């Protein structure tokens, strides 16, 4: 039952132009980030590894944050708007199945988006015939972090989509949530670390965590935090879907 729903959701990406547009957009932006990183490596002495530089180019966060509204905005908003939510929830399906299917199908699609990027790093030495400017572990830690962070951002997008029947508003809400999350990491940079809540802001700094992951440090505390936040946001999504249908 759950597998059928996940399959249907996943196919809605693979069989629709939107899915391929997102795929093309991601590959294009990953290419821009990599080429910018390689250019900077030729201009200046190598201080950090290639994976680190690729994921710290100015383009990276721009394209990364905009990915999630595209993936999630249709999740519940479209079902509610077209009335198919009623069709789904009057079968033996439960709301939790629906929320899980929407989430996991999107996570699967998101993972697929990173395959070309990972392949580029894996084949770097083979294609360029140069010494690989990063350790293999870095590819693993950075992409594991991006996977867990992506799961959290997808759950935020699903939550935003459950709040409205309009997918454009859902997309705007998602980008709003993600920008707030992103700028939490800048609070200590702007106001310094001389106040009590500074540690809390540092805990929520996605930039700090990515920096560590791209240096090959596998810090489990942010990973656990994002996994917990993902569960919490999905729970909130579940309740929102039920609340919105029960008040109609």
């Amino acid at each position, binding site marked *: *039952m759950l597998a*059928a729903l996940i399959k249907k959701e996943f196919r809605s990406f693979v069989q629709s132009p939107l899915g391929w547009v997102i795929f093309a957009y991601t590959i294009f932006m990953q290419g821009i980030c990599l080429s910018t990183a390689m250019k900077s490596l030729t201009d200046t002495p190598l201080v950090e590894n290639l994976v680190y530089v690729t994921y710290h180019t100015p383009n990276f966060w721009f394209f990364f944050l905009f990915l999630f509204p595209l993936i999630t905005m249709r999740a519940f908003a479209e079902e509610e708007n077209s009335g*198919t939510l*009623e069709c789904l929830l*009057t079968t*033996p399906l439960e709301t939790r199945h629906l929320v899980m299917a929407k989430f996991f199908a999107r996570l699967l699609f998101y993972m697929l988006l990173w395959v070309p990027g990972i392949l580029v790093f894996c084949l770097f030495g083979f294609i360029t015939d140069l010494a690989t400017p990063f350790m293999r572990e870095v590819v693993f830690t950075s992409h594991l972090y991006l996977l867990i962070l992506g799961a959290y951002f997808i759950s935020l997008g699903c939550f935003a989509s459950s709040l409205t029947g309009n997918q454009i508003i859902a997309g705007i809400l998602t980008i709003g949530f993600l920008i707030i999350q992103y700028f939490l990491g800048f609070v200590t940079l702007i106001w310094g670390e001389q106040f009590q809540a500074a540690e809390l802001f540092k805990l929520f700094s996605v930039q700090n965590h990515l920096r560590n992951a791209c240096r090959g440090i596998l810090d489990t505390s942010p990973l656990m935090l994002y996994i917990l936040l993902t569960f919490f946001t999905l729970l909130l999504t579940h309740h929102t879907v039920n609340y919105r249908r*029960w008040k109609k």
Partner: protein
Amino acid sequence: MIEAQRLTKTFGNRRAVDDLSFSVNEGDVVGFLGPNGAGKTTTIRMLTGYLPPTRGTATIAGFDVIKESRKARSTIGYMPESVPLYDDLRVSEYLKFRGRIKGLKGTKLRERTTDVLERCGLTDVRRKLICELSKGYRQRVGLADTLIHEPKLLILDEPTNGLDPNQIRSIRALIKELAKERTVMISTHILSEVEMTCNKVIIIDNGKIKAEDTPNNLVNTLRSTGSVLLEIQSDIINASQKLQELKHVKKVRSLGKRDTWNEYEIVVDAGTDARERIAHLCRSENWSLRSLHRRDASLEDVFVELTRKD
């Protein structure tokens, strides 16, 4: 098959369904009637587990819609009002998907898909995208979806809404065919549809049941009066008074004047026929009589009488 006990649903201060109790037996074909906003869809949504009732309970095939919601839902084939479908899927893909989420798999799923495609006349369009289908075919896909898991009960919310007369006839014939094997509950405003297909009628208004009986019994008993239409040449006030004094006449309503003829609707007691007395009165009063005929009550009269606001 359906037992609803004191179902109530409130949205804020508004009571959409108010203390609704009714039962539907196995094999019944029930017409669920009511004006717009009467609470039909809300009641159906409570029966299908989409909305929880504020108070009261309902069971479907013995399963409580709240406590045993999944079991109750698995016995229902439900088609919502606007027949929402996934436009990007092909007809057979959609039906297979719906079959899977209703617990079918493997050979059984394939057999059921082929069967419902045939029964609903969709075999020729099974490879078409749903967005390419006409409204009539979309309705058929909706019906095929309700049948795929062989439910004991079909609940159809306005199944012929927005169709042209030919499409209405074909969907109606299909529903009649399906009703031979299972319990069906149809929510509609089209009264002729109910008269043709249903053996029981539930009329609700303002969230309350106004009537629950067979269409014939409703016409015979609930319509408390019959009416006679009369065209005469007479003094209007005098004629109204004289007609009102006749035995079994409940009310005389002047419908105005056509040419030089006055038209009246005379409401009489149920099961009586005042035409002979009226003709006799016309003769004795020397009124010229052009027409006198009894208007048989229809389900529409019952509906209007029970749900009109004035």
